[in-house]
């Protein structure tokens, strides 16, 4: 860049505002990104981080506000224009075609007509020079999530951007993979490129970022140097107050407690070409304990949840046993009747029907287990009873809502999750299986949900938690098992578990796992 532009920030945002209906997702955001810095955008889920970067990348149109690029006012009307300016983006959810090779996926986004072989050679050279080895000829469908992220990063770097936006890049990585990514980012910074790094993980922000802008409820609440802050002070800025710590009393003599959920040699073929098969999974969850299942997203957790819940029943009845009885051949309703309760990962459309009231959503999982209470003679729904029960759950879980009995879609993600978890807790289930209990939930509500799960276990139930959030699992689990490529490791008691050990397992360090050919090439 020429000298006359020195002293001018690469990107300056003034008063950027975006409203969706009555919700102001971004409210007069100011942000400066200097050349050659890693700038963190911190905030809880729903704070407006993603909305802000979508406006910077041209996929959303701001209602008002200005954007300056190298000191010149610009209107970023579409992603193509953002790329021309020199803004590259690596999305949280990848946009790759699984049936195509890495090189073909990259070629699709370049649209400059150069032959695939040229692109592949360029991509390979670039990937090795940045320490992100990538085989351009490999099929995306065969790659791990971390490897897919490399494709996205390489694709972004091939366009020689000045500013790279990374949206929650480590949420899909093992700790070791994340370390590698940080090295790459530091290398990019040393070359004078700027990085806008979106995260809610405080430790990594403290580690690699030069400056931070903190968002809360769509507003900028502060700019700071994360290296001079503590994790607690950053959390306070993000959340607005101190978060109550989760209390977990250790359990004694769990080895002799009654097993309530047993999974024996559970295997499942992949349902689609791109889903993960389950391979000989064994696990026992005893009364009084919380077992956590860690793993990078897309390693079979969804398939495992479907099999354990009975949304997809098994051939072998003994592969899932609930309270000592075979349940593998039963439907989800049959397993609920045995005392099990389930909370899926997706709230809207899976755990709850978006356009239905909370009292109706209560009926979703409890029409059979509490049939006498909620359903009267001839299949008539007792709406007084469902309404009363819904209000009871709303009160117990402190669900914040705008109407007495609103539609599920009208609640924020965190409040809906509190309701869905509360709906199952209200039954006092003896087995509780939860997939991603606090994904997208604000810190206060997350602590509440985690505490209730621990209390449920301590009152004599078996609790199984599947999560990609390692901090969460270390907070609540008595033992942690790791799912990788459809296999489940032995549970590590929490006293022996460390981030490093779990991270190794998440990367596939368990014996018997075949490495991808890529690693050796």
């Amino acid at each position: 860049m020429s000298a006359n532009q020195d002293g001018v920030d690469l990107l300056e945002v003034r008063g950027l505002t975006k409203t969706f209906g009555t919700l102001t997702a971004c409210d007069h955001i100011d942000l400066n990104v200097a050349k050659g810095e890693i700038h963190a955008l911190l905030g809880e889920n729903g704070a407006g981080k993603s909305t802000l970067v979508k406006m910077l990348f041209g996929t959303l149109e701001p209602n008002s506000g200005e954007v300056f690029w190298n000191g010149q006012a610009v209107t970023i009307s579409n992603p193509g224009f953002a790329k021309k300016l020199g803004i590259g983006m690596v999305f949280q959810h990848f946009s790759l075609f699984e049936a195509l090779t890495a090189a073909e996926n990259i070629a699709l986004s370049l649209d400059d007509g150069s032959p695939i072989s040229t692109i592949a050679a360029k991509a390979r050279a670039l990937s090795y020079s940045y320490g992100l080895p990538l085989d351009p000829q490999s099929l995306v469908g065969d790659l791990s999530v971390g490897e897919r992220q490399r494709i996205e990063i390489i694709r972004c770097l091939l366009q020689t951007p000045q500013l790279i936006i990374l949206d929650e890049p480590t949420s899909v990585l093992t700790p070791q993979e994340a370390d590698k990514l940080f090295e790459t980012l530091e290398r990019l910074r040393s070359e004078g490129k700027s990085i806008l790094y979106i995260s809610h993980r405080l430790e990594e922000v403290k580690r690699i970022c030069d400056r931070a802008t903190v968002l809360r409820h769509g507003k900028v609440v502060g700019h700071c140097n994360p290296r001079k802050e503590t994790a607690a002070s950053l959390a306070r800025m993000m959340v607005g107050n101190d978060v109550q710590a989760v209390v977990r009393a250790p359990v004694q003599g769990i080895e002799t407690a009654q097993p309530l959920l047993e999974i024996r040699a559970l295997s499942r073929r992949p349902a689609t070409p791109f889903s993960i098969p389950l391979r000989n999974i064994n696990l026992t969850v005893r009364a009084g304990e919380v077992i956590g299942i860690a793993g990078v997203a897309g390693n079979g957790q969804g398939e495992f949840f479907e099999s354990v819940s009975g949304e997809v029943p098994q051939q072998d009845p003994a592969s899932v046993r609930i309270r000592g009885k075979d349940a593998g051949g039963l439907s989800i309703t049959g397993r609920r009747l045995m005392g099990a309760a389930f909370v899926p990962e997706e709230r809207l459309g899976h755990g709850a029907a978006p356009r239905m009231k909370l009292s109706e959503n209560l009926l979703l999982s409890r029409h059979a287990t509490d049939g006498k209470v909620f359903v009267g003679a001839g299949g008539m729904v007792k709406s007084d009873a469902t309404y009363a029960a819904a209000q009871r759950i709303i009160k117990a879980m402190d669900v914040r809502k705008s109407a007495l009995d609103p539609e599920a879609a009208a609640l924020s993600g965190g409040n809906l999750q509190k309701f869905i978890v509360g709906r199952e807790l209200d039954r006092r289930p003896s087995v509780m299986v939860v997939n991603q209990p606090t994904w997208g939930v604000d810190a206060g509500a997350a602590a509440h949900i985690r505490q209730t799960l621990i209390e449920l276990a301590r009152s004599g139930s078996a609790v199984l938690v599947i999560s990609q959030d390692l901090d969460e699992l270390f907070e609540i689990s008595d033992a942690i098992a790791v799912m990788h490529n459809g296999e489940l490791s032995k549970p590590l008691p929490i006293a022996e578990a460390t981030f490093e050990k779990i991270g190794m397992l998440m990367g596939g360090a368990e014996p018997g796992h075949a490495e991808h050919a890529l690693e050796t090439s």
Partner: protein
Amino acid sequence: MMRLELVKRPQRSMLFSALSPFIAFMLTIIAGAILFALLGVNPLKAFQIYFLEPVSQVWQLHELAIKAAPLILIGVGLSVCYRANIWNIGAEGQFILGGIVGSSIPVLFPQFEGPLVLPLMLLFGMVGGAAYAAIPALLKTRFNTNEILTSLMLVYVAQLFLDWLVRGPWRDPKGFNFPQTIQFNDSAILPELMPASGRANWGFVFALVAAVLVWILMSRMLKGFEVRVLGSSPRAGRFAGFGINRMVFFAFMLSGALAGLAGISEVSGAIGQLQPVISPGYGFAAIIVAFLGRLNPLGIVAAGLVLALTYLGGEAVQSALGISDKVARVFQGMLLFFVLGCDTLIHYRIRLIGFAAPKLESAPKLEEAR
């Protein structure tokens, strides 16, 4: 260069959701006025003949009830299908099969008389319609075929089957070779409600009872909840333990049974024998009725009466003004078009988007391409 884009509205207007059928009706009237004007008739006079004269005398109200009964019965059944996101387009065929199976008793056993005949015929009609509707349900659940296509194609099978029956094995031997069955005996005829004032029969009562029962089913019962959950969010329905395959059969067979009941009621009430054509397209018009009634059984009663009027009006303008009675089909088509259009615009707004090439100069405020 411009293109249109539908943008989802953040909120639906409750007011316009409620008004939408009426707005659609007004738009139909306006388009109809243009149509009549182009045909060279005074629109006001045409509307008077089309919409007012057919309901100006008591006996004509009876005719309205006769036409409305099948539309309501079928429409109520279809509303359950559509709420479950299952697209039964073949009610016309289920109507015909209900008529055929129900008529098998008086046609094959003309000596069989007494109070049992009619209930048995109605039951047979419902079973016939339900069984015929089970075919697309089976194809969908076993082979994942598209139920829109299979149920629609089965309509033509049913029409040709009826045609073959009345020209072949079931033809009245003493009927001078006319393609029709024997006249049903008296105990096989659906009685009229008030014979003194007009021809309306018990079919209209069946329609009202069915509407109330289905309304209770959908709004008060667990089964109705199941229909709504599976229709609006199938994955949540699976989580609830509701089986989608069972639902496909339930919705198809319930609507098939109601269409079959409508069919046998029409044959044994209004017609009194089988003939090559027993329906002026009730099964298709009932799709319009279901949507015009906002898939609410009570709204469908009102919508059924409106659609019945378009049939009577079509006949009236044909005899009074010499306009083809196909104009009734045109009115029904316009009504459905406007209903769906209004519903779409309640959920989405239209945005015009210009293809302006992105520019790299400073401050390229994207030109307003409107």
